[in-house]
């Protein structure tokens, strides 16, 4: 929907809602901007200085003030209320998860820990750097943290961003709709290696995912 505006292709379930809000704000701001500019340029041309003409003495107009104050307030507060539920869905609750990972940022890699075959983050869990494999169309839950400084887990194609803060575990979820591989750059300045810090998100079928995970378990032994 937004690809003609340079946006990366959206593959997440909540992406369309974010893109819709972006488009809505885009058109509101374009229209407001155009109206303001038309008025400004018209006034600038029509009321340019010409000899012999005096400006009209106008001190203001309280009714106009009330009108544009109310109009702006209504539009802006409506926007905030419309955004509220999308935000709550993405960051506050989210659907129950089926695949759990731990992700930790560290200078300058993403460490992704997959639970062991027993489903626990115990001794059999495997940790891989920068390679995140997820099954398609499943809710993926991440416990995000950092081992040193603040990093930011950013997947442009998912429209997802969340800072990884040392000393905290932050819950993140997403559900990818299309197979492929996508970049996971770090979006928060994290030191001299910040530029170039990136992982890869591979979205694949359940069978491919299980096979890949099995290989990881095998590699670990």
């Amino acid at each position, binding site marked *: 929907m937004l690809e003609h505006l340079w*946006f990366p292709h959206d593959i997440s379930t909540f992406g369309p809602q974010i893109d819709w809000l972006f488009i809505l704000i885009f058109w509101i701001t374009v229209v407001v901007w155009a109206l303001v500019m038309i008025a400004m340029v018209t006034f600038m041309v029509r009321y340019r200085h010409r000899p012999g003409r005096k400006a009209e003495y106008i001190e203001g107009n309280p009714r106009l003030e009330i009108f544009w104050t109310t109009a702006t307030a209504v539009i802006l507060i409506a*926007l*905030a209320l419309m955004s509220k539920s999308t935000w709550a869905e993405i960051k506050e609750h989210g659907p129950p998860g089926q695949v759990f990972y731990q992700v930790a940022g560290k200078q300058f890699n993403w460490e992704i820990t997959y639970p062991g075959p027993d489903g626990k983050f115990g001794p059999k869990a495997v940790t891989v750097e920068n390679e995140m494999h997820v099954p398609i169309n499943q809710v993926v839950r991440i416990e995000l943290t950092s081992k040193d400084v603040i990093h930011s887990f*950013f997947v442009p194609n998912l429209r997802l961003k969340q800072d990884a803060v040392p000393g905290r575990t932050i819950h993140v979820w997403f559900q990818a709709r299309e197979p492929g591989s996508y970049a996971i750059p770090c979006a*928060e300045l994290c*030191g001299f290696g910040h*530029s*170039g810090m990136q992982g890869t998100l591979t979205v694949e079928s359940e069978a491919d995912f299980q096979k890949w995970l099995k290989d990881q378990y095998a590699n670990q032994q």
Partner: protein
Amino acid sequence: MIGRQFLFVALFMMSIGGLMAMLMRLDLAWPDTQFSFLSILPQSLQNDSAITANTYNAEFTMHATIMIFFVIMPILVGCFGNFLIPLMLGARDMAFPKLNMLSFWVSAGAGVLMMASFWVPGGPAAAGWTSYAPLSAVPIYTGVDWGQNLWCMSLIVLGVGSLMGAINYITTVINMRTKGMTFFRMPLVIWSLFITAILLLLALPVLTTALALLLFDRMGGTHFFLPPGGGEPLLWQHLFWFFGHPEVYIMILPGMGIASELIATFSRKPIFGYRAMAYAMASIAFLSWVVWGHHMFQSGMDPALGTGFMLTTMVIGVPSAIKTFNWLGTLYKGDIHYTAAMLNALSFVAMFVIGGLSGIFMACTPVDMYIHDTYFIVAHIHYVLFGGSLFAVFGAIAYWFPKMFGRMMNETLGKVHFWITFVAFNCTFFPMHILGMGGHMRRIYNPTQYDFLKPLEPINMFISISAFVLGAAQLLLLANIIWSLVRGEKASENPWHANTLEWSAPSPPRHGNWPGPVPVVYRGPYEYSSPESAEDYLPQWQPAEPATAAAD
């Protein structure tokens, strides 16, 4: 005098801050490329004649720090605050002239500390102007040791200097107004500086405190912001932005005041809705204390708090919109004179509109999740601070130069400077919105490291070339200032036929501002084209009945 000192020091710092920006743009268009001319720079800014990851981080950190703390604040608040407040209120000097001088020298000392960090081992601070902990709190994370310490110390010293200034401005505005100068007869630029001073007084101690804690973490072994010792990284962000958001308005409110003066004077019309303008600035100042969390939507702060901050942030858009509509109302049925000063003031309005509107995208929490920490933010901040504050500064210099130095600036050169700056500014910063929409992160020195950013590289190239034009155009401003100081046409007392009190003083004003008695104020500041007068202006100091005044 102190106003002029602030102006010259800030213009010097602007050239350094601008140089940092040029280096960044050079790198973003041609990453990891060697340029032999870079070898003349201190080692902390280049690595074997190339800009690398470490030096790039230092460059954007110092660019923002210098531009915010040593250019925009000193010019708007230090220079024009000191110069305009006594003159426009009819006072012979500031309330505390010695404190004023001390404030300048303390600030200059802070500048020396900051400059010194270019030559210490490890180079200058490289953790961004926001210096998020723990990156900024532990030397090994950035590889910068004394550079970051000096950064903290310099800003602590600067905070003390600005605090002295703020106390002085507030006292002067409250106590030193001449007879007849009621609060609602004050020019809007004085309102804006008064409100800014209150923000400075309340916001700067928060930054100073946070910086002291950061310095303790770095040098004293404390763990205020470090999790291993029970510290909290988000505490830094809360403290920083609790100062930092009012700070944004500290840098834009005086610009709004300046634009109001210039637009009224050159439209030859009263400002539309004078009281609404003053109230709008007061409400912006008040609301600026309750929006800091919008910098932290993705920081791990409770998302429910994010919703609250989204609402307050949307609300702060309202007074900003009121101001814009009132500026348009002032143009309506005016008699507009296109001087260089007026062109800059109009550009302030147009660019501020873009900067304000792009802010709505970020205020919306779900959209912010995508565009946060991308070039969309860089575009927004530059539309507000360059398109806004700096165009206001250019306008203010053109407008008050005759009063400050007794000579007119060259109008033709001023207009050429304006048009090149205006076009190059938009070519530089508008495409950054597109980069941001493409997902281009901020603060990366080499976008070609990312496959998904490769299609955007031509845009980066275009931006860099525009930025070089923009930077070069500022030499015209410098040339105009120097040429006009020496050869400019001598200025009369009131060359713009303006109403406010500074234009009743000699150009430039001597010690004590007025040779005779201090002027008395008879009316509001914007009585342009009043039906009571045959002229298209009616100064504040002119008695109501010219006939009786002559009889006296």
